[in-house]
């Protein structure tokens, strides 16, 4: 069997479960060593499997590409473009999340348990503002959900509000 990263013969075989399916990765001695797969305690194995797999999320972001790409979307803060995003599946800076809002929404669909944050919030005035704004948003979504009789969604939103209130102390 060939190594998934190069053409050499594979000698190390990793298995992980993805959505209940066994997924096998084959590596040659070299590639295994390079990626720390021989680390018996597996933390670096986790790092390998969380990123850097062929077909998985990209590894390291490359260099800024010159000029503006096809559809013109580009982050004003860091010059990251839509092409860059498609290439590395990662972002250039935190402002990219606003610039590429539609793409973000698409990327995170199905990736996480929910689409909005219900955890820790940075301390301070700013944070309280954020949290209140968020609760307001959720309340109006809750009203809509109830109005349209989508009770399952409403229950989810109610939980999120409760969680936010909980975090507030």
């Amino acid at each position: 069997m060939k190594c998934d990263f190069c053409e050499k013969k594979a000698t190390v075989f990793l298995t992980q479960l993805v959505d209940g399916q066994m997924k096998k990765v084959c590596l040659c001695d070299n590639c295994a060593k390079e990626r720390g797969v021989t680390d018996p305690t597996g933390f670096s194995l986790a790092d390998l499997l969380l990123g850097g797999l062929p077909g998985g999320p990209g590894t390291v972001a490359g260099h800024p590409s010159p000029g503006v790409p096809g559809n013109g979307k580009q982050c004003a803060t860091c010059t990251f473009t839509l092409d860059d995003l498609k290439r590395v599946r990662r972002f250039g800076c935190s402002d990219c999340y606003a610039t590429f809002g539609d793409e973000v929404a698409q990327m995170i669909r199905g990736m996480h348990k929910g689409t909005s944050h219900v955890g820790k919030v940075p301390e301070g005035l700013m944070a309280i503002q954020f949290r209140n704004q968020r609760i307001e948003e959720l309340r109006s979504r809750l009203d809509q959900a109830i109005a349209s009789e989508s009770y399952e969604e409403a229950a989810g939103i109610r939980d999120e509000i409760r969680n936010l209130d909980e975090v507030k102390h």
Partner: protein
Amino acid sequence: MMRFNTLIKHPADWMTGGQGEHGAVITSRIRLARNLRRHPFPGWAKRDQRAAALDLMRPAVEALPAMKGAFSHELGDLTSVQKQVLVERHLISREHAARGDGSAAVIERRQTFSLMLNEEDHLRMQAIRPGLQLTAAFSALSELDTNLEESLEFAFDPTLGYLTTCPTNLGTGLRASAMLHLPGLVLSDQIGQVLQAVNKIGLAVRGLYGEGTESLGNLYQISNQSTLGESEETIIRRLERVISQVANHEQNAREKLLEDDPEMVSDKIGRAYGVLRYAHIIDSKEALNHLSLLRLGGTLGYFPTKTVMLCDSLLMDIQPAHLQLHSGRKLSPEERDSIRAEIVRSRLQSLETPDNRMSSNDDKNFSDTPNPNPGDA
């Protein structure tokens, strides 16, 4: 500033701690990802931008009360073996080690916290504890994070939470994981089922496999996959519940094996003991698999309980960079195999043969004292 050798001379706190849950849970680890506002992420930033972010973060991190007298170095200042040793101790990631200039590691004296500066995210901080202690690890790390927020402005969005380089970490930026030792489930052929079940409820399971289907060292890692849409507490609570269930299954499997097939168990443990005690050349895979069985023997009363700890520190010390550090020079793979065997032999020198199990299979109180009633064994 703390020197590398001072840091490494002592085993990390978490390496000498936990035998709770009958040793099935080796370590708990919490990682939080944070980024600075308005600074490009490290993988995208130009050299001077990375340096600017580092200049902001490093003093803030070093000033944390918890990091008093910490080890703090730019990766470019460390040798490759030193970086490798930090990776083997889980204090920095392999990816971080590869970054070199412009990245730094700040590691708390007892190695319970380590902070990676300019890894994939600006800041990745982690806490490691022995045994199943995700909640405790999280609250300690969260406090450190809150302290940092007084001096650093993190990128945060009311809807998306903490903003990370990769969208898989969005929201809480939290990765909680435990390293589990599951020889009982492997030997009784139940491991597949259990892992499938764990995966079905949305947790990630990873094992390290050798050729065929046999797993290396019977070690598995369980962690959360989702970071957005649930609070940290919810994520951790679920993970802890699942992990202790798995640990229970493991314990039941071990007890059942001893009941149904004591010969097989004794044979495996006896063979592992023989190889580790007397081998002169041993590669890391073989060492790992036998140490796993020796560790099992430590929890089943074949050896004193402290054997579990001995195995855990050996797991660390037989890795390539640790071996090179130990011998103070670069080693060929052949040399490593013989030095590895030498270290294992000498550590196990005083470990008696497992012929006399110290407790019968209904005795849960394993101790160092000999069985007062040998007829029962």
